[in-house]
């Protein structure tokens, strides 16, 4: 069963990628109760910014921090400019804005930064390969970073008053305003944080899959599946979900349905989760009374 073990490990490695993007999705959901379709494209854009900074001569970690800050600012700007005018509009309009954002950011990345595949450096480069060469130093390092971000997000939402305020603003904007929470700024903050988490995800993912404008297209779908599987309102759940989807997708592709139907596997996971247990494995079940 050597092959099986290898597939499992490869799945976990890929799952790490999904987990980090799923975190960004959870972030935006917890802050706004919206799922941003354009999250992947924004993360790609941020990663390109990072590459430009690194190529300009900045050391890696300086570029890293700067990119996170810039992405945060961009996220806030997008919320203020694009989401604010339509905040009271029906869900349909919101979906429309996300789609518009997807089109704009996706094409903008290619136009500004070019379409050739680029190498993105990793701070964890090491020749010490583990598990028979399936997990590189970088993949281990990026998993550690993902878990660190997860911890920060968890602590932020559960143990800080700002995090609590953000969750309240998303659950019940009207009541939140009554207790003095600046709902508008909470939403902006949420978008900024989600963009920042997305940027981290992008910078962790790019060394593995190589950077080009279409980097996140496929990943986003699997990340959705992972976030839903684990519970879209639970950061830990999303990370576990991401890993699970990586493993499931790999195993299904290798042994069950063949590599030609992997996207369908993701689709099946999404439908299955939403129909059987919409709150995901670890999410909180919400019942609304009519």
């Amino acid at each position, binding site marked *: 069963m050597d092959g099986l073990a290898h597939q499992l490990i490869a799945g976990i490695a890929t799952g790490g990628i999904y987990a980090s993007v799923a975190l960004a999705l959870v972030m935006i959901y917890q802050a706004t109760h919206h799922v941003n379709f354009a999250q992947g494209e924004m993360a790609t854009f941020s990663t390109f910014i990072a590459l430009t900074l690194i190529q300009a001569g900045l050391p890696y970690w300086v570029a890293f921090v700067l990119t996170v800050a810039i992405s945060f600012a961009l996220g806030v700007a997008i919320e203020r400019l*694009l989401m604010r005018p339509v905040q009271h509009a029906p869900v349909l309009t919101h979906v*429309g804005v996300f789609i518009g954002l997807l089109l704009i950011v996706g094409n903008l990345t290619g136009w500004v930064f070019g379409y050739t595949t680029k190498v993105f450096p990793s701070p964890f480069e090491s020749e010490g390969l583990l598990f028979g060469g399936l997990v590189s130093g970088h993949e281990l390092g990026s998993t550690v970073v993902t878990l660190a971000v997860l911890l920060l997000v968890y602590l932020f939402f559960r143990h800080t008053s700002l995090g609590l305020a953000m969750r309240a603003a998303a659950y019940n904007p009207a009541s939140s305003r009554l207790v003095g929470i600046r709902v508008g700024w909470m939403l902006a903050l949420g978008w900024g944080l989600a963009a920042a988490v997305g940027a981290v995800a992008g910078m962790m993912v790019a060394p593995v899959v190589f950077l080009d404008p279409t980097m996140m297209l496929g990943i986003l779908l699997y990340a959705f599946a992972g976030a*839903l599987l684990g519970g879209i309102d639970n950061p830990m759940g999303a990370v576990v979900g991401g890993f699970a989807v990586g493993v499931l997708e790999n195993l299904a592709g290798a042994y069950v349905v063949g590599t*030609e139907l992997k996207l369908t596997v*993701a689709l099946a996971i999404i439908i299955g989760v*939403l129909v059987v247990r*919409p709150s995901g494995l670890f999410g909180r079940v919400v019942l609304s009374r009519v």
Partner: protein
Amino acid sequence: MSATEEIPATPVLAQASPRSAMANWQRGALVLLGSAAALAPIFVLESFQLFQLTMAVIMALAVLGLNIVTGYNGQISLGHGAFYAVGAYATAILMSHGDWSFWATLPVSAAVCAGLGYAVGFPALRLGGLYLALTTFSLAVAVPQILKHRAIEDWTGGVQGLFLVKPDPPSWLPVDADQWMYLVALGVSAVLFLLSWNLIRSRVGRALMAIRDNPTAAEAMGMDIATLKTRAFAVSAMITGIAGSLGAVVIEFVAPDSFGFGVSISLFVGMVVGGVASIAGSIFGGLFVLFVPNIAEEVSKAAPGVIYGAILILFLFLLPDGFAGLLRRAAARWRRVAARNGDGP
């Protein structure tokens, strides 16, 4: 002098269209005018422009399908490209492998797509708003992969796709192939538009809109939400599927690359821009989907996609009920002005 307000004997329902205030002869004249406008292009336009208009009509039909389930029934579908693809392939397979005539494939395509829509409608019952959008979006992304699959490759032609031949114009009609395709598309679309218009104005249509606006109240009134929603999906899928069949035969080629998630996004954009929950809006939507990418390309050769997305967002901000809404408001203002002038001293 009564302490209570007078309640009008017949409740005033929201006027869906200004036409209900018109006299019969006015309505007849409008229909005649509309028909003339629809048929005029055959004599006026060149082949290529007629081909473009044919595609616009087909897109309008596809957007109409989407409008039924999303605009009128509130179930957000970002995956209607899947039904468009199934309709196209149904026609292509039957015509290419089975040598069927185009007209014979239409009922089959309609039935298959309706069945598929019905099947999709069931899990959709459990999903609301954003989650349904998410799920249907995933469907749209997965469709090309499914179409390419080895298991059905013998039928679908795999990545190479299938070729079709346009139906020939009948010998007694002095039109060429492009003109005939325009007439076919126009005819089929007109029938379906009429049927949809009737559906929306009927009790069923009002029930669909009630479910969209307030599902709890609708259920409390005794409507069978599950049946209505799944059937709405079925009808919607059928209409978009027929549009797909028409598209396949006009282009004379189907391949998995023709049906990526871009189609679903285009249909959604067309619906929003044309006017959600509006029959006339679907027509504008179709025109938008076909002609605006060309405009975007004129504005920026390097990044037409950016312009397209920007136009979408601009519409969402400035004209949330789309072109049709703009016309409706303009017509209402005109009627108010006319009424005020009519109420002279």
